[in-house]
């Protein structure tokens, strides 16, 4: 039987790290993660029986993060007194995760669930409500998108370097 406290302590850092990597802002990521775990606690009787409760809470946190970031963008535009969020230390492989954050939303989620939560394609499909084949093709598209974006970035960096040194 899974105990909520143990599960929370095990999963929280991973969920938070993924939110930080995709959202950037410490406050927004922490808030979204906390909110997701509160919902998990609220529904713990059913969440504990899921095949991948960690994946479920990650999806909830990413949904929350998306709404939070949208709201913050609107607030910054119309309510200038609101302070900017705290950036915090960058995650490892920051360029890679920035590139992931620039991918379409479904691709982002598939990448996080597959590579951060280490979930098999069947469980990702169940969590996102899509076919298993769609997960495979989405991951493939994500890898291709990342390859293009990162090689483009490397190219830009080289050009910047030439410019600086030239």
């Amino acid at each position: 039987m899974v105990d909520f406290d143990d599960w929370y302590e095990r999963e929280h850092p991973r969920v938070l790290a993924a939110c930080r990597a995709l959202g950037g802002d410490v406050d927004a990521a922490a808030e979204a993660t906390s909110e997701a775990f509160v919902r998990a606690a609220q529904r713990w009787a059913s969440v504990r029986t899921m095949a991948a409760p960690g994946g479920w809470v990650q999806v909830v946190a990413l949904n929350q993060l998306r709404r939070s970031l949208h709201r913050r963008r609107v607030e910054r535009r119309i309510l200038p007194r609101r302070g900017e969020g705290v950036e915090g230390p960058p995650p490892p492989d920051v360029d890679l995760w920035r590139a992931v954050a620039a991918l379409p939303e479904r691709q982002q989620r598939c990448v996080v669930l597959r590579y951060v939560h280490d979930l098999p394609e069947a469980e990702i499909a169940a969590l996102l409500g899509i076919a298993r084949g769609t997960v495979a093709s989405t991951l493939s598209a994500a890898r291709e998108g990342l390859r293009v974006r990162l090689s483009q970035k490397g190219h830009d960096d080289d050009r910047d370097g030439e410019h600086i040194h030239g």
Partner: protein
Amino acid sequence: MVDLEAAGERLATWDAGVVLPPAGDIRRRGGRRRKRRVAARTAGTLAVLACVAAGAWALGSSRSSVAPPTQVGPPGNPVHTPAVAHPVGWTEQEFGLLSYWIPPSPGQCSLGAGPGFPGGYKAMSFGANCNGLGFSPSPGTPIVIKQAAQRPQGRRIVLNTLAAWESHHGPDIVVYDLPRFGVRFELWGRVGAEVGRTIGPSGLDAVLTTPQPVAVPGGWKTVSWGGFSASVPRSWAVTTVHRRPSNVTPRELAKASAEDRRIMEHQCDLFPRAGVYRGAPTWTCQALGYAEVAGGLWLGKDVNPGPRATPFSTSSGATVVARWSPYVGDPSLMGFTVHGGGRTIEGTLLIGPDPVLAEEILSSIRVTGSTGS
């Protein structure tokens, strides 16, 4: 070239530098929300049953009548609440002198104050997705109540008889400033916009702005302090704080052991019963925690009216300056200052479970001229 496996593993074990909230806090917040969800579901069911009953009654009394999409007035405050149109099944919320209606589904939570709210003023948010004290309102929260802008800008409008400024109107958010009440409503999304249309004066505001003879039932009594009097229920104990700095009754003291009695004689840090408390707290009676009272009146605290105080005259000549609770996010606590006869005292009204009672008490305050009790 992109090693996602390794990057994913590094991220999964990365310390993001954020202190983990204790699991107990998370569980408690989840538990509270579950209770609210059950309560909201019950309220929703009752509302549906009420609508069905009302519909059946309407059908029986007039076959041609059609149930309207909105209703006016009660439930809420059957005596004083002004008529404000609101969707059927919604419930009224009172925030001091203001009232608004919310749908049955969202929970009510998140009383917060923090750096996002200038001046340390209170902010309340209502919605299914709320965070605890000290957090900024979370996404999906349709209503956030904050301090009003000092100089409201935008379009001047009238919200159910109240003068307001529409400071912003966008696709996601509408912002109303109500400077008379010192309050700003930020209303998010469709639900927020619908709630905004129901903002109006509360029953308390109606009593204070419309002088009327105060009916004091036979079960009431009049208490006086500092040149003013007020009508309160006869059952309420009257304590003059600096004379008897204890909230323990003589009967309770007599029953207590000698050891307990020594403690109880100065047990005034909590006033756990509805009553009238007169006079200022002293060093032996610091009056901490009096907000625990489930309804009561405190006369004679330090005079310190808030900057957004708004005066109202009672029918008896006293001028009441009602202001928000100094306690963040507690709409049940109304601070007020009473002026009249050249004197000023400050009081606190703990609205408790019966707002009508609180309204009657506040509107009954009058100048007596005598400073004795």
